[in-house]
């Protein structure tokens, strides 16, 4: 009893009692079963005794009449289904599916009942002979006799397809019926979906494909790109609903693929290139929604996003190039940079709102920016100038957070610059000017910027910049010390001297041909020098007269004014205390200011706006007699320390409306200004080509050292290294500052070999050894 009767226990030699070995037994029994099954087929089973039928089936199998039972059953069902098929195929159009469905449901019920009463046959005879179980047999028979019946199969398919088509065209169809029929096809496959796939899914996919091919053709010719995409979205949504309503879920990916191919893949290029509504014009007009839609659709198909990305990045490059190469814009550094920032803003916005911050898109747009920013070799300078402008005035009245945001944006562009060392050079220059001339509006903003650069490029990058700040602070202390010192000496100085002591190396010092300072100032300078050196023994102070400023009081006949001028201008003006008329040469001789600077400053002084000096061309005779009682210097700012001389310019570029060396200058007695304090414009902030070249040379020189340092660092760690590996390591190490040219790297290696830092390996000339 506890044993499971799973075929292991056989009753071959036992005969159920009560059943005699009756030769008519099988025939009689079958007749009985057959009648019963007929009734089952007619849905009339309530008079049948399960026990009786089961017992008969049981005994049939037990007495080795299983084959008879099985085959007779098959024949009977076969015959029954033939009749069913006939009824179904004779049904009229609308009733066809309904009829098929109901006969399917009936058949299923009948087969379940027959299966139950013949359960014993399923368990034993069928299993032993590897036949289909009773229920599966019923499915096969239904498939062959009904579903695949010549009068039904094609009709079924066409009916189904036309219903789907109707639905695509907006009609309402009986989804439940279709779902049932589809489920029937799935069931008929027994253990696979082969019947469903062959009989319905494949033709459906073909039909779908041709349907959407035709539809997309018409749509794309009549619709704009956004409209087309909207329609595609609707179609795709509908198809998915279709699957969930009455198709097998395994069809979803296939159907989706077909639709996407026809609706998207085949038209991607056309959509992108569509005039006035394609990708480019969407970008132009900031059509965020449409771009998002495009992203969503294109992300469905292979290569869709790649294509989109390429086009976007190409477009960004083109636009960026337009800005970078635009002569007009590059003249105005402010607008140049602002337009870059705007562009960046625009695409950041786009990435965030339309492209889901797709990493690959971010990357390719970044690359596009990098590409065009570095196209213009002046970009590092412009960034620095832009920051300069912002820090000088642009950030006035702006809250700290906003300053932070602006600086962050600038940094984003800065990140893309390859020649970061060039930027550093300019930044230093601009920072120096800001600090020395007190132009910076916010010390916090300056420090903020430095801190950002530090996080971006590391300590090394900003150490000198930070040094500049330290110098400024120390100078303040020194000055207050100096003042006390002077007071203690009980000796009043003729002028109020303010000195910034700058550490060489931190500041972009230029070689200065020192000009001849007026006696009063010289006196003060000497006083400071002796004070400073008494505190800091062994240092060398050099005066950087070209970087100072002065406030002088000028008494014009009509009115007296306070003039804010540079140190050079002060020196020039003071000459006119003694003489009212001087030639260029006289000025040059007496002041000792380098010709270029002198010209520049004279130009500023003769500027029509603030005409402090009048210029006469060489030939003209001076008629005006000037009584100049001018210039008592009040404040001077000057600068210093031991600085290595660097190359000086020999060429003399002539600034606009050039000053001729034979010009004569006269103090303008008729000078008039509404303001008491007159600020003399500093001339030419922008670099002259020569200076530019100078900066460039300096950068190149610096790079040499950096490359060498990097080579030595690497070789010291590695001891031996192959040439190409060394070069690539060097490039990797220096990437954060600039991208070194391999040729230059090679030259540096050679130079190091000459100086015996390295040697070529004796075995392989391509390998270098480090020499300790």
């Amino acid at each position: 009893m506890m044993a499971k009767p799973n075929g292991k226990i056989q009753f071959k030699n036992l005969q159920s009692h009560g059943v005699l070995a009756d030769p008519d037994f099988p025939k009689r029994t079958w007749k009985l079963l057959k009648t019963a099954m007929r009734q089952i087929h007619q849905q009339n089973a309530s008079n049948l005794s399960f026990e009786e039928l089961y017992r008969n089936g049981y005994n049939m199998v037990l007495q080795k009449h299983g084959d008879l039972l099985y085959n007779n059953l098959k024949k009977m069902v076969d015959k029954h289904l033939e009749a069913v098929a006939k009824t179904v195929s004779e049904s009229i159009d609308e009733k066809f599916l309904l009829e098929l469905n109901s006969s399917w449901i009936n058949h299923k019920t009948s087969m379940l009942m027959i299966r139950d009463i013949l359960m014993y046959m399923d368990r034993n005879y069928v299993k032993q002979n590897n036949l289909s179980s009773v229920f599966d047999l019923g499915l096969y028979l239904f498939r062959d006799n009904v579903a695949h019946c010549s009068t039904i199969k094609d009709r079924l398919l066409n009916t189904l397809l036309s219903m789907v088509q109707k639905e695509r065209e907006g009609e309402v169809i009986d989804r439940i019926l279709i779902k049932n029929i589809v489920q029937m096809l799935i069931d008929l496959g027994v253990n696979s979906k082969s019947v469903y796939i062959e009989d319905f899914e494949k033709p459906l996919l073909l039909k779908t494909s041709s349907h959407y091919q035709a539809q997309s053709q018409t749509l794309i010719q009549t619709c704009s790109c956004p409209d087309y995409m909207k329609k595609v979205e609707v179609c795709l949504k509908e198809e998915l609903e279709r699957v969930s309503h009455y198709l097998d879920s395994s069809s979803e990916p296939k159907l989706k693929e077909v639709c996407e191919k026809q609706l998207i893949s085949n038209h991607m290029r056309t959509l992108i290139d569509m005039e006035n509504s394609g990708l480019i014009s969407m970008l132009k007009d900031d059509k965020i929604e449409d771009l998002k839609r495009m992203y969503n659709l294109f992300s469905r198909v292979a290569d869709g996003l790649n294509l989109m990305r390429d086009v976007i990045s190409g477009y960004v490059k083109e636009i960026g190039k337009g800005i970078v190469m635009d002569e007009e814009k590059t003249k105005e550094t402010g607008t140049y940079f602002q337009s870059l920032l705007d562009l960046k803003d625009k695409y950041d916005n786009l990435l965030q709102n339309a492209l889901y911050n797709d990493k690959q898109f971010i990357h390719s747009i970044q690359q596009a920016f990098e590409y065009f920013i570095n196209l213009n070799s002046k970009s590092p300078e412009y960034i620095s100038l832009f920051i300069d402008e912002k820090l000088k005035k642009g950030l006035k009245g702006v809250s700290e957070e906003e300053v932070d945001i602006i600086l962050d944006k600038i940094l984003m562009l800065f990140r893309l610059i390859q020649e970061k060392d060039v930027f550093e050079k300019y930044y230093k220059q601009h920072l120096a000017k800001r600090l020395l001339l007190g132009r910076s509006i916010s010390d916090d903003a300056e420090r903020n910027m430095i801190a950002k650069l530090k996080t971006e490029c590391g300590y090394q990058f900003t150490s000198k910049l930070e040094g500049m700040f330290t110098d400024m602070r120390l100078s303040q202390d020194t000055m207050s010390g100096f003042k006390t010192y002077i007071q203690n000496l009980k000796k009043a100085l003729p002028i109020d001297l303010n000195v910034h002591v700058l550490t060489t190396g931190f500041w972009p010092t230029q070689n200065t041909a020192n000009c001849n300072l007026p006696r009063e100032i010289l006196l003060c300078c000497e006083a400071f020098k002796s004070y400073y050196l008494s505190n800091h023994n062994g240092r060398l102070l050099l005066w950087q007269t070209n970087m100072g400023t002065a406030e002088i009081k000028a008494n014009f006949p009509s009115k007296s004014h306070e003039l804010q001028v540079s140190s050079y201008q002060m020196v020039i003006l003071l000459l006119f205390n003694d003489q009212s008329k001087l030639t260029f040469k006289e000025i040059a001789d007496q002041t000792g200011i380098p010709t270029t600077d002198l010209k520049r400053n004279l130009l500023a002084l003769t500027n029509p706006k603030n005409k402090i000096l009048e210029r006469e061309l060489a030939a003209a005779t001076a008629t005006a007699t000037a009584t100049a009682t001018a210039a008592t210097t009040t404040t001077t700012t000057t600068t210093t320390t031991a600085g290595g001389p660097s190359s000086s310019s020999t060429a003399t570029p002539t600034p606009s409306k050039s000053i001729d060396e034979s010009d004569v200058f006269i103090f303008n007695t008729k000078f008039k200004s509404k303001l008491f304090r007159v600020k003399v414009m500093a001339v030419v902030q922008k670099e002259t080509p020569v200076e530019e070249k100078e900066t460039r040379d300096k950068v190149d020189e610096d790079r040499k050292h950096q490359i060498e340092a990097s080579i030595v660092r690497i070789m010291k760690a590695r001891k031996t290294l192959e040439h190409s590996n060394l070069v690539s390591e060097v490039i990797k190490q220096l990437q954060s500052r600039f991208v070194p040219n391999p040729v230059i790297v090679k030259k540096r290696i050679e130079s190091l070999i000459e100086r015996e830092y390295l040697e070529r390996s004796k075995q392989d000339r391509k390998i270098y050894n480090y020499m300790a």
Partner: protein
Amino acid sequence: MSDNPDTHDLNSDVLRLYSSSGHEFVLSRKMSYVSGTIKSMLSGDNSNFMEDQNNEIRFREISTPVLEKVIQYFYFKNKYTNSTTDLPEFPINEKVVVDLLLAAHFLDT
């Protein structure tokens, strides 16, 4: 063979079994589901056989003592399936052992 609790209507929970000699046994439907045959007789999909409607099954080939033993086994099986206690012996009279075996086979128990 396993106990499969079925959500059959509670009103028809009582089932009558008759032996070949007409002896009536009354038991819960759920208990009888130990037999695969009885189970499909009663709970087949929409089968509506006579037995299902009348809630009674007549076994023409099972004698009273055997049917009694079978029903005892139904309860035995239900009680100890998934039980953690030690399984007691199920007593079987040697005289009915062959008949019982046949009945068990017939009933798919």
